[in-house]
């Protein structure tokens, strides 16, 4: 096996994991060079969290192998634990304790001396803009502050490899941008980062390489630019209130588009990749739809989402297999609603 100090920071080969009938991972391969950021993109239930849990020694794989910083996650779990930091989907902090107490307890559990624990906690509180709130119970923290504190906690032991499982899910847009800045600054310090996300724009902003996971398999890998080129650049989207005219609208729009339009019969939403032609495509679309006499709502151009990547790669929309009660399409729905409200 590779020596410490050479080779990738994370290496995953044919990793499998099932929970009874559910095949969470069906043989994935990953390789993350030191000091780079891998974005693992996929909908809920795709297997992202399972992969992170195996890589952070919380779960044993059924098959395949995973190596972090040269250490096998199964056979050298304690060595792996010494080189990693984990920030999961829910903020793993003790609500009753202050921000500082939370970090100091983690520091003591990393066997730092009392003095260096104190220094490290103060340092991290400052870095994460929590100095003012440091001595208040975390209970009163905002969602963004919780996440920042949780991220700070994952860095107490100065990990070489950091795992962030959906670090911005549930945050408001502003906190999300703040989180991105923080993550960028961490990476600038040379930390290897594996980040899971449901948002293409997040992976786009933060990751050097992106892998797309669907139903336990890697269905695409490459840079953000690679993926976007497969989607076909910007996406034109609109709603046809009269469902009987959907086919006419699709036919009209296909003349100005780069690819086959995707028609959602249920919601009456038509989306289509228009490549880099942007506003030119928008104007042509308006003309074509007008000529066809189809009434539309919320016609707009937007950047590709995870859904578009999924449509392009698999022909089906991103499905959330494990949380049927939740919003099925995440951000895309929000964008739709906003578009309709303003039109």
């Amino acid at each position, binding site marked *: *096996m590779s020596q410490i100090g050479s080779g990738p920071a994370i290496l995953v080969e044919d990793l499998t994991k099932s929970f009874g009938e559910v095949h969470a991972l069906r043989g994935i391969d990953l390789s993350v060079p030191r000091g780079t950021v891998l974005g693992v993109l996929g909908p809920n239930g795709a297997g992202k969290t399972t992969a992170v849990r195996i890589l952070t020694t919380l779960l044993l794989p059924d098959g395949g192998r995973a190596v972090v910083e*040269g250490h096998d996650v199964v056979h050298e779990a304690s060595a792996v634990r*010494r080189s990693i930091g984990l920030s999961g989907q829910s903020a793993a902090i003790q609500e*009753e304790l202050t921000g500082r107490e939370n970090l100091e307890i983690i520091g003591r559990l990393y066997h730092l001396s009392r003095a260096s624990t104190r220094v490290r906690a103060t340092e991290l509180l400052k870095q994460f803009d929590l100095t003012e709130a440091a001595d208040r119970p975390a209970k009163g923290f905002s969602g963004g502050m919780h996440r920042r504190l949780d991220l700070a906690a994952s860095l107490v032991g100065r990990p070489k490899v950091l795992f962030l499982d959906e670090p911005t899910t549930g945050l408001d847009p502003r906190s999300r941008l703040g989180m991105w800045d923080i993550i960028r600054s961490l990476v600038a310090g040379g930390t290897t980062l594996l980040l899971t996300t449901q948002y293409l724009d997040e992976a786009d902003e933060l990751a050097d390489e992106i892998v797309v996971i669907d139903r336990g398999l890697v269905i695409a890998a490459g840079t953000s630019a690679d993926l976007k080129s497969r989607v076909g650049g910007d996406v034109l989207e609109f709603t046809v209130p009269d469902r009987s005219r959907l086919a006419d609208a699709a036919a009209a729009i296909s003349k100005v588009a780069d690819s086959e339009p995707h028609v959602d019969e249920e919601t009456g939403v038509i989306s289509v990749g228009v490549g880099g032609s942007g506003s030119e495509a928008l104007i042509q679309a308006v003309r074509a739809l007008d000529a066809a006499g189809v009434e539309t709502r919320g016609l707009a151009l937007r950047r590709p989402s995870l859904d578009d990547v999924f449509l392009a790669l698999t022909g089906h929309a991103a499905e959330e297999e494990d949380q049927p009660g939740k919003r099925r399409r995440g951000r895309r729905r929000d964008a739709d609603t906003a578009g309709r409200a303003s039109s």
Partner: protein
Amino acid sequence: MTTVAAEPDAPGLLTQARWAVSDTLTITKRNLLVWMRVPAYIVFTVIQPVIFVLMFRYVFGGAILVHVRGGYVNFLMPGIIAQTAAFATFGTAIALAQELKKGVIDRLRSMPMARSAVLTGRLVADTGRMTVTILIVLGVGYAVGFRFQNGVLPAIAMVLLAILFGLSICCIAAFTGLAIGDEESVQAFGLIWLFPITFLSSAFVPIATMPGWLQAFANNQPVTYVVDTMRALALGGPVEANLWKSLVWLAGIYVVFVPLAVRAYKRAA
């Protein structure tokens, strides 16, 4: 693959043992800190047994005929103390279920700390909490007329046995909390069996007043052995036979539930 070079900085056994102790102390300290930060926890733990003391002393007590020196309140207190120790473990189960759900346990398990510390630290802190609760309830008992009849050492032994008993239930509670992993479920039914098992014992009434079929159960279950031993220690009377039965039962609980709790912690998903 797992070569020697892989673990150059692996700590030696002695260091590991030292860390296990220091990690346990850190977790204990954390748990006690949480506990002191939210005084409501103490109030809730104490308020139920105090209400029971007052209710049984003044409401039901008059109707329950017992033949012990000092009357019903002396009969009652060892039973209440045993129940207090058992009920204090609700906190253990709920706290672990919460930590599991919130990802605190995930974080701790992904760190290079001693794996045993989360459980041992929890048990040590909760034993401390249980002890404080027991002493408060004893104080209330004293205020309403309870008196130890058998000297200081047996009185201390009674409290120690109550703690040993509570700690054994604590292991069951830890397992339950980790296995169920959901705060509300744990609260609703995880430890609900503690009610019948403490009431269908010699804790509150003489077993001879129960119907025959119930006596068969009540006479042969561990809470009765523990309470009878505690009562003999507090008020005088033969201790040995019930003490042995209690210790065998408690040992049995530890032997079964410590490994189960450890396994539930390791596998917590």
